[in-house]
């Protein structure tokens, strides 16, 4: 495969000929459109881009992109994508998954892909519900959630996907929202630039089974008070006119939200996405309560460590450097050890 030549592609080039079949009003449409209009700016030829998905509403995503794509089986996309990525370093591999796919049936593959730092861009569409199976609670549904399978309310405590990814040693962890195309694309851009696993949680509205789950983060009346926009190197200030700030109270393991007016500006935390210690990003991930108040969006953590692909490739390359003609090497291999000859 030759190296990338600058290609001028447009959003149209990335649309497949398949009819998009999500429910009208689904947040997935916005994410798809954002992705289709974002991909051309990467300058990567379509044939070198691959989308691998699992099962669920989000996992239909690959069908609608005119790249290579595989709609695989429930929860297994990170494993399949690992095999592809490790053997084909020339490709850009995206994994599209949902809260059920990635965190329930596929939880094991997700954490191990992140720990290995496989060169995958993992997009987790979190709508806090099972959509394709018509409305059961998911591993991100809030405790007490009333659904078809939990008529008396769910007894399961939910996962915090950002905390989980950080705990799994992810080198890039971000969150964004389906309806904010500009923010979504900015996060996608940083994920695409990252070497190693990039984990992006996308809050996505399921207007059929869990409508409005993220409205407080979207409505003009509430969003400023609920959202903390993370920008590396910028103070953690939010709210109308910067009314609130994030601090690290002495003696506490966690972070706190306070009023800007009552806080010494020197105590306002400055966001450091590159902090080696994941404790800071973890503390950030715990700021939001069940009501979504104080939800950070943006890149929580972005650090450089060798990708699994690189490490594997280095070993292969080192071994291959010592290789001769393959069939001669094979003959030598078969004839190795204690051999004897019968005349």
């Amino acid at each position, binding site marked *: 495969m030759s190296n990338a030549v600058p290609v001028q592609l447009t959003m149209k080039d990335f649309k497949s000929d398949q009819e998009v079949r999500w429910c009208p009003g689904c947040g997935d449409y916005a994410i798809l459109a954002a992705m289709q209009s974002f991909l051309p700016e990467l300058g990567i030829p379509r*044939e070198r881009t691959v989308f691998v998905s699992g*099962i669920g509403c989000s996992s239909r995503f690959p069908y609608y992109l005119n790249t290579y794509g595989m709609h695989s089986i429930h929860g297994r996309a990170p*494993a399949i994508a690992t095999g592809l990525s490790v053997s084909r370093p020339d490709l850009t591999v995206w994994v599209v998954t949902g809260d059920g796919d990635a965190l329930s049936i596929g939880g094991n593959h997700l954490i191990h892909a992140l720990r290995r730092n496989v060169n995958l861009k993992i997009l987790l569409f979190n709508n806090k519900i099972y959509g394709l199976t018509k409305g059961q609670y998911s591993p991100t549904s809030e405790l007490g959630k009333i659904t078809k399978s939990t008529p008396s309310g769910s007894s399961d405590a939910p996962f915090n996907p950002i905390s989980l990814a950080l705990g799994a040693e992810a080198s890039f962890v971000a969150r964004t929202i389906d309806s904010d195309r500009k923010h979504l694309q900015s996060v996608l851009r940083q994920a695409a630039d990252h070497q190693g696993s990039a984990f992006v949680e996308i809050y996505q509205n399921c207007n059929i089974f869990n409508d409005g789950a993220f409205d407080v983060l979207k409505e003009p009346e509430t969003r400023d008070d609920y959202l903390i926009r993370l920008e590396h190197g910028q103070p953690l200030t939010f709210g109308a006119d910067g009314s609130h700030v994030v601090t690290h109270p002495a003696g506490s393991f966690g972070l706190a939200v306070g009023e800007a007016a009552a806080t010494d500006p020197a105590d306002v935390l400055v966001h450091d996405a590159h902090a080696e210690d994941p404790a800071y990003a973890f503390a950030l991930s715990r700021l939001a309560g069940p009501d979504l108040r104080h939800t950070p969006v943006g890149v929580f953590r972005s650090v450089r460590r060798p990708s699994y692909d690189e490490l594997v490739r280095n070993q292969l390359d080192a071994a291959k450097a010592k290789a001769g003609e393959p069939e001669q090497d094979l003959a030598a291999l078969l004839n190795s050890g204690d051999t004897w000859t019968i005349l």
Partner: protein
Amino acid sequence: MAEQREGAGQLSEHPDPNEHGHPAKEVHQLDRVVIRFAGDSGDGMQLTGDRFTSETAQLGNDISTLPNFPAEIRAPAGTLPGVSSFQVAFADYDILTPGDAPNVLVAMNPAALKANIADLPKGGTIIANTDEFTKRNLQKVGYDSNPLEDDSLAGWQVHKVGLTSMTVGALAEHPVSKKDAERAKNMFALGLLSWLYSRPHESTMAFLEKKFAARPELVAANKAAFAAGWNFGETTEGFAVRYEVPPAQMAPGNYRNITGNTALALGLVAAGVRAQLPIVLGAYPITPASDILHELSKHKKFGVTTVQAEDEIAAVGVALGASYGGSLGITSTSGPGVALKSETISLAVALELPLVVVDVQRAGPSTGLPTKTEQADLSMALFGRHGEAPVAVVAAQSPTDCFHAAIEACRIALTYRTPVILLSDGYVANGSEPWLLPEISDLPDLRVEFATGPNGEDGKFYPYLRDPQTMARPWAVPGTPGLEHRIGGLEKADKTGDISYDPANHDFMVRTRAARIEAIDVPDVAVEDPSGEAKVLVLGWGSTYGPIGAAARALRQRGINVAQAHLRHLNPLPKNLGEVLAAYDKVVIPEMNLGQLAQVIRARFLIDVVGYNQVRGLPFTSTQLETMLEEVIKNV
């Protein structure tokens, strides 16, 4: 009495006992010997057996080995569950099995004696390590009195040898700890047995130098222990006779001794070389398949990538993802792993991509007997998936055959773009035999062509437009410009591969997937019926090849006609199989399961086959098959 064979003489580095006035011992020739080394899991019996095997291979005997070890890594010392054994048969003719019963039992402790004595025919030889026959060790395994001292072993020839104390004594001047000295007792035993059977010792010396390269004092100590054992045999009055087993008549060429798992791994490497494709193995450690992962992880220079995945499902996912990207994706496991992988294998059936799934079968269900053999995954391989999900199934019949079976599995996977399940089992995986090394140029050419451009007459690309010869769809790997397409587990429209819920299309695609597996070109099954007058055919598959072959041979030597056929291909079955089966009055199928092949044969050919079934975690003995077949033949 034969001349001393080159390489079977005294240890040159050590004093020749003969020079000290001992008369040379009488040498008897034997045509076949079966030795079983038995001891505690920590006694190094597998290594001792391996070394003896290697020495024997060097001599040119035909060999067959059977390791037998517990699932526990180190069960409590001196207990019955901790007994590990290694049986090696060697002969001056070609042999098919590691022997039904040993002639010689080396018992390193009372547990090893107790666990194995029932298998040793009366008159056989026991070499027992007296140092371990302490009151406490005897009590541990329920001996009220010392069998070496009472009359209970009267029917056997017992050699009482203080293996541990003599080893420690021999190493008194060596700068090693008492523990290391005691641990060298297996080399003393090996030295003694090597003397007794006139084995060449050079390969063991070279092995010790390599194994303990970092600790020269251990090289010297282990060599000295070996020499002490050898010299003990030479000098003691206890061993009046030493034996020779002359080389077997074997086809000319280069040989090495090899286990099934190693041969299988090398077959996969060879397939990658002959296909000119990188290999990606996804695997999760599991007994008895892990050695395939270990072996392949050494061969990076051949473009072999091994991924030790987080679980069995991920392992097959990695393999399938790699195949999608144009590598030869392989996963190796045992039965419990295949169960977990079945959904991904179904996906591979739908995606029509190459995938090799190696199942080194072990006794089930569930965890079962992890270190013991069985052939009970055939039904799972053939049918163990949801929906109509046919895959090709091939089986290996002996340790060396694992090499060729692996290449055949890869050939089918690559040519027909399908998952292939390759069935091995614990018996062939851990057993070993001499391998006539193949010429690389004799191995099949497995090169494939990736799709490079549109395949439709209208200039478009159709991911599910098939090759009329193989019924395989194009292998269009990511990175190929102009062939961008989407595939997945949802039912696909014929030719375009687009999602289709059309009933007629689904019916067509299900039948097409069945037909394309059925159409795989596999060689006819060969029948061995030397007299041409046999009325009974014994049909087998997989690792029963050895015992069935030995039984058939024994019957023929007694003038009883029997025909033998052995299946490499379980799906599709060879095209001539119906004709073969119909030519005999009776078909007998011995299997280490409750009749899984028999069920298939009955269903496919409406023949009332006779099943002979055993699930003891051990291979059939040739004697039991001989007896059974004789009975069937008598009643035809």
